[in-house]
């Protein structure tokens, strides 16, 4: 049905598998409470993400009209019940949003013999599971250029649906996208693009002050270079090919080149204040999810990891 579509059959299948895998993965994760690091600075946001705190519900949805604001923002129905004027706050604009970018480019379909699954599948599993975990914690999750942020319970289905029906070309990195300042962005990719490209993309993403995490998904074969003999290597995204006479002789050089590549990426992320995580597909996916869990929640670690003990979240000063 979708052979002519850019993603192709592989992606649909991977998505379908990843949907289930992600649900299972998310089910075993500790519940995540993400406290925005910016929350203290924005009074208007009020208590965030605690839908259960019934007492504060009216309060954070309506706020007093401050003189100087546009009159059309006043919620007259509410204001008519009293002397004050109330402004209906637009919830979706104000909520804390996490953007997740799963790389679905052709190079992600690579899978060597030692890997548990392809990089694409691993990426999708992580993305969907992360989305589920985040939504469970009251966050809103979106996919740059593909899905608007949503807090729906059925976020996995919606995300999978969006990925499956994506009519666009699969790019390695999100392009032409700048998230809101308070948003977080998680970019999951193999990051084999030239460092320049990565740097440009990251700069663009953090142009508005957004904060992010860069995850490199690699196949074990891409790290160990287990080839020997006469091999012709082909770049799956059409960047060219190279014939190697004795591949085993190339291994040390390749490893050095790989380390340099990673060092360059790390330099970029350090400069922007992003985190950089490397994940191999022969490891279990929950390792990465836990790492992401920790990093995303580290803005308020105490709250993040101890939702069960803390009856109320502490408001950061």
């Amino acid at each position: 049905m979708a052979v002519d579509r850019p993603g192709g059959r592989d992606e649909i299948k991977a998505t379908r598998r990843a949907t289930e895998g992600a649900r299972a993965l998310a089910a075993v994760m500790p519940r995540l409470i993400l406290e925005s690091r910016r929350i203290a600075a924005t009074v208007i946001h009020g208590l965030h993400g605690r839908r259960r705190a019934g007492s504060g519900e009216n309060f954070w949805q309506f706020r007093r009209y401050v003189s100087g604001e546009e009159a059309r923002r006043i919620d007259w129905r509410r204001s008519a019940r009293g002397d004050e004027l109330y402004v209906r706050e637009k919830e979706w604009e104000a909520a804390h949003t996490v953007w997740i970018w799963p790389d679905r480019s052709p190079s992600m379909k690579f899978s060597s013999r030692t890997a548990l699954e392809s990089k694409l599948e691993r990426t999708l599993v992580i993305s969907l599971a992360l989305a589920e975990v985040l939504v469970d914690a009251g966050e809103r999750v979106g996919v740059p250029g593909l899905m608007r942020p949503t807090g729906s319970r059925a976020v996995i289905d919606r995300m999978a649906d969006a990925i499956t029906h994506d009519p666009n070309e699969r790019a390695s990195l999100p392009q032409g996208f700048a998230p809101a300042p308070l948003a977080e962005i998680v970019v999951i990719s193999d990051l084999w693009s030239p460092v320049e490209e990565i740097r440009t993309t990251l700069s663009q993403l953090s142009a508005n002050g957004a904060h992010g995490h860069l995850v490199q998904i690699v196949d074990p074969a891409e790290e160990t270079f287990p080839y020997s003999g006469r091999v012709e290597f082909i770049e799956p995204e059409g960047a060219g090919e190279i014939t190697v006479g004795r591949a085993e002789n190339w291994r040390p050089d390749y490893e050095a080149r790989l380390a340099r590549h990673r060092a360059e990426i790390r330099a970029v992320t350090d400069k922007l204040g992003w985190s950089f995580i490397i994940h191999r597909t022969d490891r279990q996916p929950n390792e990465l999810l836990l790492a992401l869990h920790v990093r995303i929640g580290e803005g308020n670690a105490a709250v993040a990891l101890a939702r069960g003990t803390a009856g109320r979240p502490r408001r950061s000063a």
Partner: protein
Amino acid sequence: MMGLPLGFASPLVLLGLLSLPVLWWLLRLIPPRPRRIEFPPTRLLFDIKPKEDTPSRTPWWLTLLRLTLATLVILAAAGPLWNPPTATTTGATAIALLIDDGFSAAASWDARVRTADDLIARAEADNRGIALISLGEAGRDISLQTPAAARVALNRMKPKPHAIERVDALPGIVRLLTATPNMEIIWLSDGVDLGRGSEFVEGLAKAVEGRPVSVVAGGLPTAHALAAADNAAGALTVKVLRATTAGTEQGLIRALDLKGLPLGESRFAFKDGEREADAELNLPVEIRNDIARVEIPAEKSAGTVQLLDKRWRRRTVGIVTGATAETAQPLLASTFYLGRALNPFADVRLAEPGAPAEAVRRFIEQNVPMIILADVGNVAGEARDRLSAWVDGGGMLVRFAGPRLAGSDDDLVPVKLRRGGRILGGSLSWDQPQQLTAFSREGPFGSMPVPNDVTVTRQVLAEPEAGLIDRTWATLADGTPLVTAVKRGKGMIVLFHVTADTRWSDLPLSGAFVDMLRRIAALSASSAAAENSDNPTAREMVPPTRLLDGFGAFGPPPPTARPVAAGYAARATSDHPPGFYGPPDGLLAVNTLAPADRLVTLDYSKLNARLAAYQVGEPLDLRGPVFLAALGLLALDAIVVFFLAGGFAQLFRGRPRRAAAAVLALVAAGGLLMAATQASAQQRPPQQQRATTTPPADQSADAFAMRATLDTRLAYVATGDAEADNVSRAGLQSLTVFLAQRTALEAGEPVALDIARDELSFFPLIYWPVVPGAAKPSPQALARIDAYMKQGGTVLFDTRDAIMAPPGPGGEARAPGMVALRTILSSLDIPELEPVPRDHVLTKTFFLLKDFPGRFNYGQLWVEATQTAKDDEDESKRPARAGDGVSSIIITSNDFAGAWATRGDGQALLPMVPGEPRQREFAFRAGVNIVMYTLTGNYKADQVHVPALLERLGQ
């Protein structure tokens, strides 16, 4: 060319093989196609400085594959031929074609003729003359012929059944060669040398004088021959010969009788380096004696046939000794000397200890051709008559004298004997121990040298009479006979006038003894031998009867075959071809090879000849198969290259699932199959369990058998009618009690029988109340009843209807019970019946009874008619008739059981019909008599004679 029948049409193309090293170098140089791998971080590789890579070489096995391919192509181009035709020099000279046509050529005659035919055909094409020389027919004139005429002559040639003597043909060849100086000689040899082969080769080499010579030999299966058949003590052995020593070989020999029926088979095996192998036919001696022909069935030639006549027959000799004490010192007994002397050529059977007459009778029954009586005096009575008849029928009776014979009168001796023996050299005698001095020239010992180590100290003497000289085979120095013989009927009686042990002479210690016995044994078992024995030295000529052709098949004798002397034992010749000679009952076998003949490989080295092999099949063009093989290798190479280039990975990339699914499906199918077989295997145990659950039935049968046999029990047939069965049981119970009170029989509880199922043979008497209207028993049940009655059981049928019988004569037979009984009995084999006669043993077995009442007293008791009933008068005077055995059937209509039956308290169950109280007592007595009759049989019939016997004894 010599090893493999392989040739090439254009051998020059084979020079192409020289190009292989170049090809090898080239192949080593060209690297294989690289593997193609999609590798996402390829862009990183772009930045790495390229290395100095030496190109990886083609794997050695791929090079080998390609070189093989190239070799095959070159070979195919050279036009390989299997079985290339025999090469001759091309030219216009005439050809002398020498053909070995002895027995050793017969097995592969077709191949030889084909080769010769091929040579003739090519000579025809080249327009050359041919002189066809059969080395087996020396006398034939040799001349040059046209190829067409040679072909006709060739087709007329047949292999000879005898060994050929090539030297005899040499003069003719020399003559031919001197007449035609320009000639090519081709010898189609069979490669077998029987002694004078090298002589012929030398002679031929001399005659050839530099002419081109080709010898065609080999390439055909080795010819075998059989020789030296020997019917030894344990088995018939025959030597299998071959001309070569190379290689191990196995084969089969088969023994046939005179009619061509196979009697046995055996295997022989040649080891490497052996020219002869032994084959053994382990058969009973009687069957071995029937063997007339031993052959190698796989090879049709006269040489592979060994014919056996009566000289190979192994006699069985029975020895009977009159001495009883001989067992005390068995190594000095006459049987020991005889056994030792006979063993080399005959099977000795010793009589069991016991009466000589019995032993003789047994030997005659065993159809032994020769019996030795060692010092048996009179053979008495019937045994004498039988022995006499046996001798008349062709038996060979050999007797040894001894004290018993010397003291007896007997007509089973060849000459009249004086009573008592004669002692030579004893203390009371003037005579010295006598030497054996002469063998009669007429007798079988005629040709034997007279031994000088035989002295006789005692002998029995013949009465001097007219025919004594004719009957004497061996005489002592004083002219008294030592061995005499006479023909009687078809048989013969031979008497040694001394004992078979060393008491009377030392003849048994002499080697001549063995020879004498051998010659006597050779005379036995054949009337022809007996006839011959009249004038055996007269070396008569026997005409050919059935002769072998070259292929070993029997046929009528050819006109050239001439009679042979009766004792002919040499190698067959063209005058005396192998086969059977003489009359049908005294056949003489002449074999192709003499026992001492051995086959040797012919040595051609002196000839300086070109050697070639026979072509076994048609020339076969191998170009097609070789090209096909090359094509196969090409395909293999393509697959290998495809594989090396990662073709399979590409083939399956993107659908490992599918491949996995296919593999899974295969595995699943296999698993299902396994599961199915396991399931069916698991379904079996229930059946086995069912099988093991049958033992309870067996156990119940066992219990029934134990119950029925540990006590003697009366039995009744359960009719299915509850009332009748109750009465039967109660009646038999009462009878059992009555028996225990009055007689020695203390029987167990009565048994109810299901005649269709229960074993009947445990019961001496079965009471069968006939219920009118009851279903007729099944045929199987009736068969069981029949078998029971035949095996000695007795059935007491009680129709219980005497009261219901219509009045008048024969009314009893029309009563309903009788009608029902008749339907039962109609399927049984019932003997003639009669009413119990007054004097039947039934009336006397325990009580003396006049009649046999039950509840009714009108009914008649029927038993099997005794055979003596109609016999003569004095039989009828006897107080009791015996009848051999017990009547298997007793029929009454008086309802015995009803009379016997009592309730638990001892009161009678049913009323008696006339009502007299004594009637019940008599009914019991009748029952006791019947039971006693079935248990004791006609014993009482003998007992009734006791008073008469006592009376007689008293006098």
